[in-house]
């Protein structure tokens, strides 16, 4: 009834509510991965999820378009509402509706290797939306030009570099005219010199007002583009706020510890600018949802990295054993997105 024609909800700036997640929980067997997550995202917002491996970032993202079946909770995206844990025809139809409203970009690109770039992009519109082939190809070409692949529209994925593949993947997701774009570590599988081109496309998307949820440790990108940064750990949203708050004035100990981990030794000045490099000793790992205590007094004037013991309080399970190490992502000072960037400086 009201499902199909919901009353739009707006925030104080008049932006439409695109994503509403209530008490989302996910178990893998007995392993409790998401422990009750609430999230509201308004139109045009860019939300960046950070957090250690196994904290549930990717799982949360994949739950949003039901690549993982959430155990319980409510998910509403673009006016389609689904109660998780149900089944049957209506559930399937709603999930399909949500998937059509979400574009998703994967860490491993997942392009269809037996189709060229254009076919990859037109597959969804033709099969799912029933668009005319000629119109779909026209639109695909336009999208591919937009992501800077006007020259390679008939190339097969095996003929493209990682960065080019990821840009095709973004075009493929955009071809379905999504209201929300989900990025699952889109640059983690890329060679460092290829990361910049993908981030630039994402930045362009954001500047055009696309609503985005991004799992990424590209701190420069987050700082420049994100409206909100969410630190996630042990299946909870520990802390969220504008990047200036979360990066420069983290409140929770675990956030501080995490940020300290992912800062490279090589950039102590920037780290100092962020005000989190004076940490020396292990901070006590609090349990449960955000504690909010300010432990900056405990920080010592030393830039040494603390060996990673595993995410605080997070049980390592089969799903995250493969990548227990947090990717060491350099945090650089350079502005993001100006092209062309010198190699090595493209990634921010």
């Amino acid at each position, binding site marked *: 009834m009201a499902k199909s024609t919901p009353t739009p909800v707006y925030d104080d700036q008049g932006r439409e509510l695109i994503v509403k997640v209530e008490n989302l929980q996910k178990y893998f067997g007995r392993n409790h991965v998401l422990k009750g997550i609430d999230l509201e995202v308004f139109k045009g917002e860019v939300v960046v999820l950070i957090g250690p491996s196994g904290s549930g970032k990717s799982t949360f993202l994949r739950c949003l378009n039901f690549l993982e079946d959430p155990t319980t909770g409510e998910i509403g995206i673009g006016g389609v509402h689904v109660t998780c*844990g149900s*089944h049957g025809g209506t559930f399937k139809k709603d999930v399909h509706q949500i998937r059509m409203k979400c574009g998703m970009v994967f860490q491993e690109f997942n392009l269809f290797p037996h189709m060229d770039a254009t076919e990859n992009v037109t597959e*969804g519109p033709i099969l799912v939306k029933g668009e005319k082939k000629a119109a779909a190809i026209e639109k695909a070409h336009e999208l591919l030009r937009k992501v800077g692949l006007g020259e390679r529209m008939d190339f097969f994925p095996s003929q493209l570099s990682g960065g080019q593949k990821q840009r095709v993947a973004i075009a493929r997701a955009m071809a379905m005219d999504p209201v929300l774009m989900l990025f699952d570590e889109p640059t983690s599988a890329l060679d460092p010199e290829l990361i910049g081109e993908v981030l630039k496309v994402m930045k362009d998307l954001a500047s055009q007002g696309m609503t985005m949820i991004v799992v990424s440790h590209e701190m420069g990108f987050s700082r420049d583009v994100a409206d909100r940064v969410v630190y996630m750990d042990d299946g909870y949203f520990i802390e969220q706020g504008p990047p200036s708050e979360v990066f420069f004035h983290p409140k929770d100990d675990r956030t501080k510890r995490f940020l300290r981990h992912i800062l490279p030794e090589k950039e102590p000045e920037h780290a100092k600018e962020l005000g989190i490099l004076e940490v020396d000793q292990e901070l006590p790992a609090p349990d449960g949802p955000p504690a909010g205590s300010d432990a900056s007094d405990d920080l010592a004037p030393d830039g040494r990295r603390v060996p990673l013991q595993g995410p605080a309080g997070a049980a390592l399970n089969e799903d995250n054993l493969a990548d227990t190490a947090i990717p060491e992502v350099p945090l650089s000072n350079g502005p993001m997105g100006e092209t062309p960037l010198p190699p090595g400086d493209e990634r921010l």
Partner: protein
Amino acid sequence: MHRRAGFASIGLFAALLALVLTALAPVALASGEASPSPSASFQAPQGTPVVLGVIPDPSGARTKWSGDQININLNLNGADLDPAASILTVDGEEIVLSTPASMIELSPGNPTLLMKWNEPVFAEGDFMFDVALFDTNGQPLQVYDERDGKTADTYSWEFKSEGEATGGSLINTEVMRKWFWYIAAGAIVTVELTVISIVLACIFALLGSLGRLSKKMTFKQAWDRYQSKEYMFRMVLGRIPYWVATFYTSLFRGTPLLLQIIVIYQGVPEFIKAFGLPDTYNPPAFWSGVAALSLNYGAYLTEVFRAGIQAVPKGQNEAAWAIGLSGWQTQRRVVLPQAFKIVIPAVGNDFIALIKDTSLVSVITVEELLRRAQLAGASSLNNFSTLLVAAAFYWALTIFFSFWQAKLETRMARDKAREKEKGKK
């Protein structure tokens, strides 16, 4: 090197094919001759009491007879010769029959049947004997002679023997040449069996593998997840393809192919009769063979296809779902095209193996290579020579198809390499 082998195989096969095609007409003639134990029966005009025929061919056209017996066919207007009512003599000696019979075998190796022939019958020379029938009172019965269309007391038969025929030397090129076309026609049947069976096997394998992969979670997991009887009921229905596919692969991989061939050929008519359908139904041997071969190979290929589908990265499914493709669209457009590429080498392998396994259907009288070689061997008395011809055909077919299989695979590899090169520039 590779290329030369390829040309040689193409040339060889083209030659075989041409020979086989031109041989199709003579085949009919050859197959009439091939029957190893020919028999003739003589139709009598209406009302004649006793009709009697004798083989070997009494016309004398075939004088080089090497069979070890003579068959006398009796046609007593549809009834058997009853030993209690009539007595059969050959050259005046009574043939003692213990049961009613319509065909009497006179064997030189069995002197109780014909005492006077206790030495090899058909040594070189002229032979003649008279066959006669008497009733229990010793009165002769009228015997119909087809050759002159008259009835008489006795049936006289004479023929000239050129002596005992043999198959000649172990490898007899004359025999090989004589029976080459006859066996070559069997090669066509073999190829037909192979191609039709592998196509059907792939269809069975596709359905079987999708069935095998349709199980997503256990019943316990589903119950823990949804706690819904309605869901469980639908899940039981949805599990049927999995059960069917599992039963199918288990059964056909767990029993011998030869047994499957025989059971399908002989069991299907019984099955049909059991359901009250016309009991005159006889299954065509060829299609029974195709059914057995394709079901058996389909079971093996099911596992190959299943592995191929599972070898497609899970991310491909997820990417397809993420752009809104349904489950079936995902399979059809994304997973299966990639899976097919993965399984091509394995299917090629099974195709080569199937060429040779088709020989098993010779046991249900399908006249493919082996069966024809056996028939020709029986007729020519030189099994070894004709079987060698069949072996050569199998080998040639295998080389030919292996060549194309290798070519297909190298081409796939080359395409990949070329794509990579193009991507680099």
